[in-house]
């Protein structure tokens, strides 16, 4: 029972958990630093060298804050909703592969795949868990019994339902091209090159799909310019207005982990996953990390460049622009695969 492979699996699961936690902390630092640079400020610089320990200080501050609950709140759901948000954020990464087989310097001779669970319907699992995460936000908004929270929760559910359609259709067009629902198989289909120098990434076959996926992904993770659920100027803080201390931190963390998951799935689906030049397959995770980092940087860049849309513009864009584009893209892709057999 206690084979090296079994221990490796357990270590891998813990590793993914810790990685996601620390990536949330790292993202907070990156967000503040990039925002500061774009606004010609210094950003955090006091705690540790170049302010690198700022996230730790923030975590300690959040832990020691007082936990508050409004009197009129629904106690059970108020406590449950941050847990739903955080659980969904962590669970979605379980089926995302982030590297090829590695032997961990020969410790595991048969090699272990850098993926917690290799499911043959991985894309659908990511999508299903993503569609569950809306409950955390909606219930937080409702159970707080506050007008700002409720408006934030309602906006969020409307937004996530609207953009989930385009999100799902862009996933469908990739699985038509990749001919599989398994993320590992889709990544493996992207190995090699065309004409010797163009990498076989699906972003070149599916540029429209990539655009739709990224746009819908920003809306699904409630990031600017689609951050209506927490539009500060209108709603104080949106669905988590009444939360404080660690319950607030759980929402905050869930948002950043969802960003990491969306970026990791985008890397697997469109950017060739862990395939890249110069490095052998077992070191492919370095490429994976670089690609995910690039997408995350793009996210932060977008947030501090574009102003927030108006709510009706967001809805109109989702239903009348993005959804038709996604449908036409799927039809064209399916027709192309049928007639040319890509």
């Amino acid at each position, binding site marked *: 029972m206690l084979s090296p492979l079994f221990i490796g699996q357990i270590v891998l699961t813990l590793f993914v958990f810790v990685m996601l936690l620390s990536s949330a902390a790292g993202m907070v630092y990156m967000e503040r630093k990039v925002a500061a640079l774009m606004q010609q400020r210094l950003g955090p610089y006091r705690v540790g060298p170049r302010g690198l320990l700022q996230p730790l200080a923030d975590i300690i501050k959040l832990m020691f804050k007082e936990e508050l609950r409004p009197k009129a709140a629904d106690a059970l*759901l108020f406590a449950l909703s941050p847990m739903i948000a955080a659980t969904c954020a962590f669970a979605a990464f379980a089926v995302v592969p982030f590297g090829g087989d590695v032997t961990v310097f020969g410790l595991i001779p048969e090699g272990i795949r850098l993926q917690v669970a290799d499911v043959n319907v991985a894309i659908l699992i990511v999508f299903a868990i993503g569609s569950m995460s809306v409950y955390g936000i909606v219930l937080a908004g*409702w159970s707080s019994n506050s007008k700002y929270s409720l408006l934030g929760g309602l906006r969020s559910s409307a937004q996530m339902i609207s953009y989930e359609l385009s999100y799902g259709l862009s996933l469908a067009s990739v699985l038509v091209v990749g001919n599989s629902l398994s993320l590992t198989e889709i990544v493996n289909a992207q190995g090699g090159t065309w004409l010797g120098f163009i990498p076989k990434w699906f972003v070149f076959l599916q540029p429209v799909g990539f655009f739709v996926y990224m746009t819908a992904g920003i809306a699904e993770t409630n990031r600017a310019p689609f951050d209506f659920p927490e539009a500060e100027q209108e709603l104080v803080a949106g669905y988590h207005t009444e939360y404080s201390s660690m319950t607030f931190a759980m929402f905050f963390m869930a948002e950043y982990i969802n960003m990491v998951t969306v970026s990791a799935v985008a890397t697997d689906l469109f950017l060739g996953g862990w395939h890249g030049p110069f490095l052998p397959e077992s070191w492919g995770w370095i490429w994976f990390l670089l690609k995910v980092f690039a997408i995350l940087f793009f996210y932060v860049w977008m947030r501090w460049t574009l102003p927030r849309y108006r709510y009706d513009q967001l809805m109109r864009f989702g239903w009348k622009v993005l959804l038709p584009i996604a449908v036409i893209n799927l039809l064209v892709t399916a027709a192309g695969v049928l007639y040319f057999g890509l």
Partner: protein
Amino acid sequence: MVAFALVMISFYLLGSVAVIASILVIAQRNPIYSVLLLIASFGALSGLYVLLDAPFAAAIQIIVYAGAIMVLFLFVVMLLNAPHEDTEHDLRVHPLMRVGPMGFGVVLSLVLVAELVVALSAGREPGSFSGGSTSSVAAIGRALFTEYQFAFEVTSILILVAMVGAVVLAKKESR
């Protein structure tokens, strides 16, 4: 042996969650809790599909029912701000508590029980799926669009009709 025991334990665990949650759905006074318990029941059903080696059905169950339809339910319940059903008085004058609707309910439940008894006592083997393994999405798709195409298309038309009906009913009359 260990694997079999694990499957049996999971089956009874998920099955009891599904049944208990479904019963609690109609026992709640607060509609929001009813919606959430129904989601829990769907989640347990999805787990049962995984045990039946049908991960595709499990994922679709979550995406369609728990992820899309129940979000809309929750949305409606929250927007309408449905009140608690608390007083005994309300229950007595409720239209569903009259003799006619209750008699109809009794007839319906008798039909359901009779159907279940017939279906379970027939002792047939569970219908085998001609397309191959139920875990293969390609096989399911092929079967759906060839063998079961008529049922599939009729169902889509039914859903389309229901959607058009909802739009017509919800539309305000223009003068």
